[in-house]
């Protein structure tokens, strides 16, 4: 039997940390024991009319207390994530996990690493920063309001960019890299597709390996339904076509393995 399980987890705490951004700690027990940086959990709503699980990346793992922290965005009124944001500590939530592969930390050990996060792609980089034994530079891209940036300072040198220039570099994470003359040997990144596309191009230009965490609409979350595929550069062994499953083969891919 696998290390993935579906079970009811108690919410330990929940707080709003920025506009529409919430931070929730779950008493995850064996799911916390088995979890890795860059993996995700599937959360089920308590509303029977909303069937599909919501995949949410793991922001932090507290191994001692066997807890997992999720930092997620409320995507709109009446959505599943809005439902999660209304839940208080002590309430139980159905969760499936841990899912996906996570970041290959060993590939960056001892090297100079960029940990790049964009928007709601920032949270999974926090546990990655925490666990990675390397010379870490976190480059975090926001629309305007910052979140989690202070927490990254415990583990990495932190640079930020904002679209409106209200903090850090005006522009995106790569603008922040250029403005500050930053350099790295390896990149780990998570964020929206246009950002990942630009980071992939940057890594190719610099000739450095880059791992990106992708996102796609999912149903099962475990690799059976083939909803959340992304295009692969080569024919994939499992699918026998140019498709990889984001939930099972990813969400973290070597950037050259996938087409963006």
């Amino acid at each position, binding site marked *: 039997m696998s290390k993935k399980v*579906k079970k009811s987890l108690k919410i330990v705490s929940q707080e709003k940390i920025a506009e529409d951004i919430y931070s929730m700690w779950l008493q995850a027990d064996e799911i916390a024991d088995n979890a890795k940086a860059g993996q995700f959990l599937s959360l089920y709503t308590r509303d*029977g009319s909303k*069937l*599909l699980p919501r995949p949410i990346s793991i922001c932090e793992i507290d191994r001692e207390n066997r807890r997992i922290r999720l930092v997620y965005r409320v995507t709109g009124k009446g959505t599943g994530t809005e439902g999660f944001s209304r839940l208080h500590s002590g309430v139980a939530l159905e969760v499936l996990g841990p899912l996906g592969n996570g970041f290959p930390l060993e590939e960056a050990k001892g090297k100079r690493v960029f940990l790049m996060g964009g928007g709601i792609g920032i949270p999974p980089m926090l546990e990655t920063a925490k666990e990675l034994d390397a010379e870490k530079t976190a480059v975090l891209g926001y629309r305007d309001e910052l979140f989690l940036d202070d927490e990254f300072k415990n583990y990495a040198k932190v640079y930020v960019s904002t679209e409106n220039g209200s903090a850090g570099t005006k522009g995106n994470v790569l603008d922040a890299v250029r403005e500050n003359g930053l350099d790295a040997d390896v990149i780990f990144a998570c964020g929206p597709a246009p950002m990942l596309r630009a980071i992939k191009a940057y890594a190719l230009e610099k000739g450095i390996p880059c791992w990106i965490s992708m996102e796609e*609409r999912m149903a099962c979350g475990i690799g059976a339904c083939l*909803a959340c*595929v992304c295009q692969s550069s080569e024919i994939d062994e499992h*699918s*026998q076509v140019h498709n990889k499953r984001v939930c*099972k083969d990813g969400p973290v891919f070597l950037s050259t393995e996938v087409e963006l």
Partner: protein
Amino acid sequence: MIKTSVNLAGVELKNPVMTASGTFGSGMEYSEFVDLNRLGAVVTKGVANVPWPGNPTPRVTETTGGMLNAIGLQNPGIDVFCRRDLPFLKKFDTKIIVNVCGKTAEDYCEVVERLGDEPVDLLEINVSCPNVKEGGIAFGQNPKALEQITREVKKYAKQPVIMKLSPNVTDITEMARAAEAGGADVLSLINTLTGMKIDIHRRTFALANKTGGMSGPAVKPIAVRMVYQVANAVKLPIIGMGGIATAEDALEFIMAGATAVSVGTANFYNPYATVEIADGIEKFMKEQKTEDISELIGAVK
């Protein structure tokens, strides 16, 4: 001793619970959650003569009490399927039903013929997928075409043939009779209902394919009605499906006339659903002092 086993065209299933094609892969992923030995049968995802890439993403979206999918029958092709998926399934004490898809009658027949010497118990012919442009539903919406493809497939099939019916027709009993006339051994229904969802913020379709197949608890009453109608129209055994998430749901289909049931969308939100349903049916039978499940099949008249 309670008897839960059912017979589909001479194939004895230990219980009536199977998986709906396309929701369970070939069982590998779900075998990490459920003991496949506990299932009456595993119905695989549709397999074609060559690998199919499927549709662009997004391929799924949620609807109230259901979902739409437009995967487009992505599959690794029959060669890899026979080399990798069948040996895996063979390790379990469950019946193997392979769902077959194709673009032309020749495609279907090629796969069916190829499976003749493989350890497969039944074949399910997918003539009802709403998400592919060729084949699929094109064969399943015209009674003459359905009768003909059934007859063609039967020429090549060494195993009993299940024809999977589409609900996207004016009268499903007409299609059921056509499949029966063509020589089908079993009918399965319903495949998904064609639907559409618009993303009003992006002013576009929620699915890249524009339309998708609707499934989940929201479609169950339609499916139960169709199973009841078909059960009263043909003599063939029926595999009922459409929104089954609990043993109670499964029992509705059985009482409407289904010999077996398939669990589909429920796997996505409860990976343990299949075994829970098998257990639940047995519990219901004990409580009701029903000794043989055949007493429940078509119990409503």
